[in-house]
């Protein structure tokens, strides 16, 4: 079946702009995660949704970052007033339940000029 998909695959924006990154999880997966991978680093946890609610948002770096999952399926990661330090690959993962294996999407490469 279809895996986790993320759009766009690449996003270039200017400092100070607003961006939205989209994640479509595997159909039927109730849990959804966002991670960020900076150059030369491993993925770093941002936020975890169980259904429509954020069960753990302890990884969001500051209040410029926000994520939603209004219908318990597709999720959008929103970044306001982007900074050059936000440049990274943003990864989305989903799992059937909260404690099941996480399956990752291909990521969105965000470049802030």
């Amino acid at each position, binding site marked *: 079946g279809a895996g986790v998909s993320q759009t766009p695959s690449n996003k270039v924006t200017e400092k100070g702009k607003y961006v939205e990154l989209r994640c479509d999880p595997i159909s039927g997966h109730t849990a959804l995660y966002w991670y960020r991978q900076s150059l030369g680093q491993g993925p770093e946890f941002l936020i975890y949704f169980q259904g429509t609610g954020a*069960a753990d948002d302890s990884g969001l770096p500051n209040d410029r970052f926000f994520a939603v999952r209004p219908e318990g399926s597709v999720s959008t990661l929103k970044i306001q007033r982007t900074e050059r330090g936000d440049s990274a690959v943003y990864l989305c993962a989903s799992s059937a339940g909260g404690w099941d294996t996480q399956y990752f999407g291909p990521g969105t490469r965000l470049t802030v000029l």
Partner: protein
Amino acid sequence: AQSVTQLDSQVPVFEEAPVELRCNYSSSVSVYLFWYVQYPNQGLQLLLKYLSGSTLVESINGFEAEFNKSQTSFHLRKPSVHISDTAEYFCAVRNYGGATNKLIFGTGTLLAVQP
């Protein structure tokens, strides 16, 4: 706080040679352990995992990893590598139970297999 250490950022190896990618973790609670692989221009894929039971776990493509609780390690091994194994390998931990199931990743090891 939990952390994962992958001391080797790169491991060059010749084809058909054995390889070991090291992973050590730090945690005050019981953990689940994972190895993910990222092939060039592809997303992260689960390679193998330790949840419970036998401390030696295997993947379908010949990799194995052994959970060593006393040494807090989960090293990845393969007796004979192929060119196609060239990829970035990430070790990760997750709390057993608790309020969150986030993965904590190491910084990755690039396995470069040379002919």
